[in-house]
């Protein structure tokens, strides 16, 4: 059965994030009510994804290398997007990501006090990426680069849980139709199944956020429809967890969100017992 390989330090899997850093990302996010730009949305999404992935793999002795992680930026340039000590590296063990954020900010979070109330708690929030908006949107080139990186990974880790690629973009590629390049990624596979390609569409449209749809009918524009078609269906095991978390899913449900949060995908990953009362 596909998508059943154990993810462990001896048999790690791979996460590859593609982040759109093109000039159009300076446009407002949603209808601009929040005063935020799409580039802010991208930076927020990638920082939260990395934060959640590191926390997922963290144990008391440190971060266990269940995953190797890459971030490819595309805009004025296409290539590895980490800065600082990780600059220029394509795939990095998740422990190094955890130990080397660009900086750590203090934020206040409201948390349950266990007695029915909320209390303010100061938490440390790591930042790896700041907003960037510059140049065109060479999405085809970025997908091609991702394919080359994954081919290398899969040659070395043929029995791994299939790598997951998350592309965060406003969907407006400037170097052609990205469908074929996306197909080529989804056709790559390990012994345990095909690579999963998920897309996060951040748009300037004022439209209701959409999470994990099972049809393109109802998506607000042709870019959203294209990204939906480029996205992999959620494998059965992910659908089952998504369902337990309250998402409405069917066999057609795809790894696609529109102006919404995709951090839930990290909760869908299975590295061992996860309590149902931990949300």
């Amino acid at each position, binding site marked *: 059965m596909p998508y059943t390989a*154990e993810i*462990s*330090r*001896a048999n790690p899997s791979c996460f590859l994030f593609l982040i759109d850093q093109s000039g159009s990302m300076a446009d407002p996010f949603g209808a601009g009510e929040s005063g935020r730009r799409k580039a802010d949305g991208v930076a927020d999404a990638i920082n939260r994804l990395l934060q959640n992935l*590191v*926390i*997922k793999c*963290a*144990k*008391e*002795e*440190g*971060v266990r290398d269940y995953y190797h992680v890459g971030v490819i930026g595309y805009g004025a340039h296409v290539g590895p997007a980490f800065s600082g000590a990780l600059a220029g590296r394509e795939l990095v063990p998740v422990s190094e990501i*955890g*130990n080397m*954020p660009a900086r*750590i900010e203090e934020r206040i979070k409201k*948390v*349950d*006090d*266990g*007695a029915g109330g909320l209390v303010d*708690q100061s*938490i*440390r*929030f*790591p930042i790896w990426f700041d907003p960037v908006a510059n140049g065109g949107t060479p999405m085809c080139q970025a997908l091609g680069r991702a394919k080359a990186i994954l081919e290398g990974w899969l040659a070395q880790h043929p029995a791994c849980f299939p790598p997951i690629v998350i592309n965060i973009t406003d969907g407006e590629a400037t170097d052609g139709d990205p469908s074929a390049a996306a197909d080529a990624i989804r056709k790559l596979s390990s012994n345990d199944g095909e690579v999963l390609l998920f897309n996060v569409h951040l748009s300037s449209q004022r439209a209701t956020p959409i999470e994990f749809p099972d049809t393109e009918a109802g998506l607000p524009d042709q870019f959203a429809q294209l990204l939906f078609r480029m996205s992999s269906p959620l494998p059965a095991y992910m659908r089952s*967890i998504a369902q*337990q978390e309250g998402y409405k899913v069917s066999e057609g449900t795809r790894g696609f969100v529109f102006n919404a949060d995709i951090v839930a995908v990290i909760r869908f990953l*299975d*590295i*061992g*017992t*996860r*309590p*149902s*009362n*931990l949300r």
Partner: protein
Amino acid sequence: MHVFAQPFWAPKGGSTDREYEDAFWPRKRMETTATCLRFAVADGATETSYSGIWAKQLVRYLCRSSGNAPFDGDGFRRLQQRWSTIVGRRPLPWYAEEKVRLGAFAAILGLVLYDDVDREGSGRHWQAVAVGDSCLVQMREEEVLVRFPLAESAAFTNRPYLLSSNPAHTGRVVDHVRNMDGTWQTGDAFYLMTDALACWFMREAEEGRTPWRVLRDLDTSDEIKPFREWVETLRKEGAMRNDDVTLLRIDIT
């Protein structure tokens, strides 16, 4: 009553003994005669941190308690505070701090055997309490008398409700505490198992095999293989999920 108890344990394949996050009591092989004996196993969740410490605390809590040990009273809240104190002793990296904030989680299963000669009828009785998916079976010769709290292999998932060290996650704990009682006879055996082993046991029994014989024979001249080797073989065959494994075998002789 005269009881012989023996624990068996193995860490998840690919992990070290130090990374083992189950807990159990008694810690060593024990042979004793008593009128009341307490046993427990607990299983710390892989995805939470410091869950091994929490599992040990829960086992101690159940086995040192003189009566029922509820999971929503002051004693339990003190246990949760104690966990926070233990893990908050030194500065932590941001990710470890976040894991501490989320809390540790563990399944717990406790068994008390009574031999109350002054009580009529059910003097030889037992009580069990469980939260989560660690299970016990009561054996009488070749018959499985009781399966508790889960009764079939299909009931095991990777997302059980577990006891948390964080009070924010134990608000509805009473809905998830399972209790059971029964009587015992000399010659009965109880096997307390964490989830991977319990799931294997249930599946084997469902398919008409006799898993209790394998457990009964461990560490005797009839054993198929020593416990760890046997577990490793099952994992390789795909018959047992790769997880920390604990068995507490209790024979009333």
